[in-house]
């Protein structure tokens, strides 16, 4: 579904992505792990188009999208959430969701009809709110949300695009155990044909969700395999889990 070929990216003398080949199959739940500074978020940005690679290609299906802009990729079906909450401060939860839904339903250019007249958009916003668990806060300004609810809304925005591929950057970071459990349940409830790439530090969450794992270290792919294989890999354990477990 989403595939990279020999991706390379450097900032000055620092190479943050080195010869990364990654293949995400349809419906795959793929986790991306590695220590801080391993280049996970950079790889995300290369996939979504916020950054352009120095060398290498990104394919979506059979199409080369290496030169496509972030918005074109989003329209094609690649949605993402951000590591730090990245919402529309000053708007309510409902308005946040509506913004994303407006774009995904292709009526963003309509300037001659009030948004309020599109009732189906409002219905969709409510069902999405239910899905990510922010129904009670629909009319609250996002500034008033708890951190965990912000994370949930963050994912709601990405889901509003009806994506084919969903990239989640540390969806449970900073969450309480309860919130993390909610999030895991929600992610497990996503449609089967949705392809998921997830950066995650919490190993419990990871092993709960993922069926494929890629380990990044200093920009290079250290290991790829199933969660069980990763668990058993001495190399990965030594380099990465040593401190964590």
């Amino acid at each position: 579904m989403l595939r990279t070929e020999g991706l390379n990216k450097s900032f000055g003398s620092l190479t943050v992505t080195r010869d990364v080949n990654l293949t995400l199959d349809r419906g795959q739940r793929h986790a991306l792990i590695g220590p801080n500074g391993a280049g996970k978020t950079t790889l995300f940005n290369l996939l979504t188009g916020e950054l352009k690679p120095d060398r290498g290609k990104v394919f979506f299906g059979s199409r080369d999208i290496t030169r496509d802009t972030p918005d074109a990729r989003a329209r094609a079906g690649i949605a993402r959430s951000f590591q730090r909450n990245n919402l529309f401060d000053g708007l309510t939860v409902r308005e946040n969701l509506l913004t994303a839904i407006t774009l995904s339903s292709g009526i963003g250019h309509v300037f001659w009809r009030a948004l309020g007249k599109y009732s189906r958009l409002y219905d969709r916003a409510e069902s999405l709110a239910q899905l990510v668990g922010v129904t009670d806060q629909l009319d609250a300004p996002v500034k008033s949300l708890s951190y965990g609810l912000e994370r949930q809304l963050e994912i709601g925005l990405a889901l509003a695009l009806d994506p084919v591929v969903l990239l989640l950057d540390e969806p449970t970071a900073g969450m309480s155990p309860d919130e993390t459990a909610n999030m895991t349940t929600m992610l497990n409830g996503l449609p089967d044909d949705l392809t998921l790439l997830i950066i995650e530090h919490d190993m419990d969450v990871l092993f709960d969700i993922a069926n494929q794992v890629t380990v990044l270290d200093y920009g290079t792919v250290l290991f790829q395999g199933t969660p069980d294989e990763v668990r058993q890999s001495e190399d990965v354990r030594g380099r990465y889990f040593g401190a964590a477990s």
Partner: protein
Amino acid sequence: MMSRETWRAGTAILLLVAALVSWVRADYFGHELLTQIAILAIFAMSLDLLAGFTGMISLGHAAFYGLGAYATAAFNLMLEWSPWAAMAGAVVVGAVAALIVGSFAVRLSGVFFIMVTLAVGEALHAYLFKSRAFGGDDGLSGIARPDTSSIGISFDDPAVFSLVCVGFACLIYALLELVVRSPFGRLLVAIHLNPSRVRALGCPVSRYKLAAFTLAGAIAALAGSLTAQHNAFISPELLTWTTSGEALIVVIVGGLGSLVGAAAGAGVMVLAMHHLSGVTDYWMFFMGLFFVGVVLFAGNGIYGVIDAVRRRLGGAAH
């Protein structure tokens, strides 16, 4: 609690009523002031679409206002188009110019955008100041107003013309109100709040900003066209950075992102200028100080105060 939109529309109607009452009571000079207010309101509302809704603070918006005036003069005097055709032509010229300028300006943000728009305005001013064809610094005079003698009214009558300008202001308000309530308008606000996030959601941000910039340029050109017909005269003075700056002051004193605030600000500005400049030669000092005060303390200007009343009422109702 009344919605923000309803409250805004209510304020707009109140303003219109005030305009009509003063129209009825106005003498010759009253009509003059009313015309000035209406034209400035159109100009300021177009800037509000940019600055208030889309977050593009321009210090060169007068370029399109001036171009509208110059295009009206050129079409009317040189090509001898009818005043209506000249006005329509001016709007097209404003839109096209804004499309061209915008195609590179909208990629810049914040202070860079300010500086580039400032430079574009100054460059155009410098060009027109020297151009012999367009009268140079002397400007051009004799621009005609539409001839409506067939229906028995004369646009040369200040009372008629002021009413026409108020009418145009209402039309533009209605158009812009529709735009800012539309999906497109809501996305402009979202772009203002968080451009990278909207992009990640699939919005071609630059194209949306360019569309807003073009629309604002076209409306500014309409205001310029009305000014040209109002004064029957144009000069490069219309394009100076102070003209842009005064419009920005109007929008900010009126309240960014409220449209009706820009219109109210236009009224305050014209009347204050009229009264203050009679009292002191240093009225810009007070205007500047007032402006800094609004930026510093009042948050969202005149409309901010009006909206606070709505919220107070809403709070009491609960």
